[in-house]
């Protein structure tokens, strides 16, 4: 199987879709000549031309609004929001327009729009360029929310996002871009709502998303040396959520830890916790532990930034708490 970086896998999905389908096109800030601030769309201007790889003004509201209009007219636009922090500037279009049209029109309109964005700490981007806001969008009926953690998943899920008839917020993580992984030679679309067991285990289930998936896998390795068998589950799509797989896993292991880079309070871990406690109540042998960032605007200072966001060690500590014996 070929190996791609996470970044190349995103580009591969976009390029394949654009080669096959004239309805697919890109819009975003600096995505054409510059190839995007994270280099994801590098080289695509040359292959697909300025009509289909379109630079936009610095207005997220306009970018998303234009995307919605094009989508409702039958196109399958993929727009890029440079940092997910800037999604806040397009909230009206995302929450009140994109998410609502299909239902409010009684199904006469559909919005097959993909909003790609990225973020994450780890390179001192500061408080306004490093947030993880995925849980905000899980609260909005009418949207879909995807957050892949591997090259294979990001490619297969992006394909499904492009061909989904609903607006999809597609989260990528800055620190995952350079990570390599095997991908099938042929692009295999990955359906939404299907979790992936990244590692099987018997003592505790760690439900991790985004960058915390590789961190959880590392924690699982370390836990194994302590005789603790950790199962790592990546839901991959937060909305829809594969509750069945999550509940089945916790029913097997009897313990659960959630892990994301977003701040813990009000984070997606809270939703996961609610799902688990309800679906696996009689199977829980320990309180569910949540791992996330400390509740503060993220510091620029590297030491403080690293102190604030969670790492494998934090997952390991939480795992140990769930199996603790007094």
């Amino acid at each position, binding site marked *: 199987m070929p190996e791609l970086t996470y970044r190349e896998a995103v580009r591969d999905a976009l390029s394949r879709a654009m080669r096959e389908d004239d309805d697919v096109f890109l819009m975003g800030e600096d995505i054409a000549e510059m190839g995007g601030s994270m280099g994801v769309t590098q080289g695509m201007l040359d292959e697909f031309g300025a009509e289909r790889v379109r630079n936009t003004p610095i207005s997220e509201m306009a970018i998303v609004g234009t995307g919605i209009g094009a989508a409702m007219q039958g196109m399958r636009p993929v727009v890029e929001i440079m940092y997910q922090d800037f999604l806040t500037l397009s909230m009206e279009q995302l929450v009140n327009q994109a998410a609502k049209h299909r239902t409010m029109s009684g199904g006469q309109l559909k919005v097959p729009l993909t909003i790609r964005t990225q973020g994450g700490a780890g390179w001192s981007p500061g408080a306004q360029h490093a947030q993880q806001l995925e849980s905000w969008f899980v609260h909005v009926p009418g949207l879909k929310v995807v957050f892949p953690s591997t090259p294979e998943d990001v490619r297969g899920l992006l394909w499904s996002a492009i061909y989904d008839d609903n607006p999809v917020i597609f989260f990528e993580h800055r620190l995952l871009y350079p990570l390599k992984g095997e991908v099938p030679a042929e692009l295999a679309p990955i359906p939404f709502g299907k979790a992936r067991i990244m590692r099987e285990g018997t003592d505790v289930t760690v439900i991790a998303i985004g960058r915390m998936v590789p961190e959880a896998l590392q924690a699982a390795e370390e836990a194994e040396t302590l005789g603790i068998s950790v199962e790592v589950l990546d839901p991959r799509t937060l909305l829809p959520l594969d509750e069945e797989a999550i509940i089945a896993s916790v029913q097997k292991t*009897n313990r659960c830890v959630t892990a994301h880079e977003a701040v813990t309070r009000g984070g997606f871990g809270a939703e996961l916790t609610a799902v688990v406690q309800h679906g696996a109540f*009689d*199977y*829980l042998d320990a309180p569910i532990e949540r791992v996330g960032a400390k509740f503060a605007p993220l510091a620029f200072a590297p030491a403080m930034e690293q102190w604030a966001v969670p790492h494998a060690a934090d997952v390991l500590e939480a795992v140990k*708490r769930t199996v603790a*014996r*007094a």
Partner: protein
Amino acid sequence: MATEVKLPRLGQGMESGTIVKWLKGEGDAVKKREPLYELDTDKVTQEVEAEADGVLLKILVDSGEVEVGKTIAVIGKPGENVAAEDVAAEDVAAEETASGNGAAPAPESEEATEAEDRPEEEGSPAEAMDGERERGRQAAAATAAAEPVAAAGDGGGRVKASPLARRLAREKGIQIAEVSGTGPEGRIVAEDVERFQSVAPAIAPAGRAAGEGEVEEIALTSTRKTIARRLTEAWQAPVFQLTVSADMTRALELRERLVGRLAEGETKPTVSDLLTKVSAAALVLHPAVNAHFTGESIRRFSVAHVGIAVATPSGLIVPVIRDAHRQTIQELAAARAELVGRARDGKLQRADLDDGTFTISNLGMYGIEQFVAVLNPPQAAILAAGATIETPVARGGEVVVRPLMSLTLTCDHRAIDGADGAEFLRSVKELLEEPALAL
């Protein structure tokens, strides 16, 4: 200064006991050495005496199972304050495992009222309430410290257990309050229930299949639970059995003569007593069999304390005849009769059951020809005796009829090898066939 009454450890290995009833009420005067309450341990039910003079100020655990060392009551001077902080803080666990609640005077403070009014049914998911509950408890304790004999001990009731532990307990018919928790803050976790399950027998499911007729459901007594736990443990030991038949002609003759010489009121010696005598003699000769297997070591004994399996209305019990090797058959018969009598009346003391080095189980009186007994840990061997039966045997080329008794020795192979067991059993056989050699 008030004296806390703590649940005593009445014998080796005792971890908890069940308070059956109090023989004194709150406010009653008690004297040192006066019986205070009845305690059911895993071996016996006995009266426990007061260790101090004074007034029984407060009963903290009215009834139910309590761990050794927990404070169950307070004795002090009339009107003396109960040192409530200590009692309440230390003994939450004890209260929680107890099934009953002592009647408590009405609490004085609002906080206390709030805490006391909390629903206490088992299974209440109000985990989050615990912090608040604890504050309430402390407030109650503080009030109690200020007021004479206030509500210190009541409350409790809620058991801290994980949902999984509760479900397992429900499915296995285990009272969650009987399980002791080893999780964080004493929480009962699944492993605790499973461990409890492995030492306690499963209770018949509450449901009743249609068309099966009446089902009698018998709650397990402490004795029954102990039998189940110990025998389950014993079943896991790698054991082997050896069987011989002893010609009982001379032993029976000896018994006849002993019976003929009995003085007024003396106990008739039985075949069992003869067997005890020769076994004790053989044990001293073969210390390899007269041993305990502790897991860390093998302890071989030079004295033979022989346990006798006795069927009682509440189940099997094994009182011990101490120094059996030093006693005459007549003394052994008297000791046996006395112990069996008390065993059947439920009057055995803990000390009657401790320190056995070997056990004999005799089902001969039921006509059982031969059987295999289950080890009585930590003892490394147990002897099963069958009935003495007239049997045709070959002697010097002739078939003759002789009274034979079958003897089956069960050995814990971790402590005893086959040859050791065989030598012991050969000695028992020889001594039964020539009882004079045991003298």
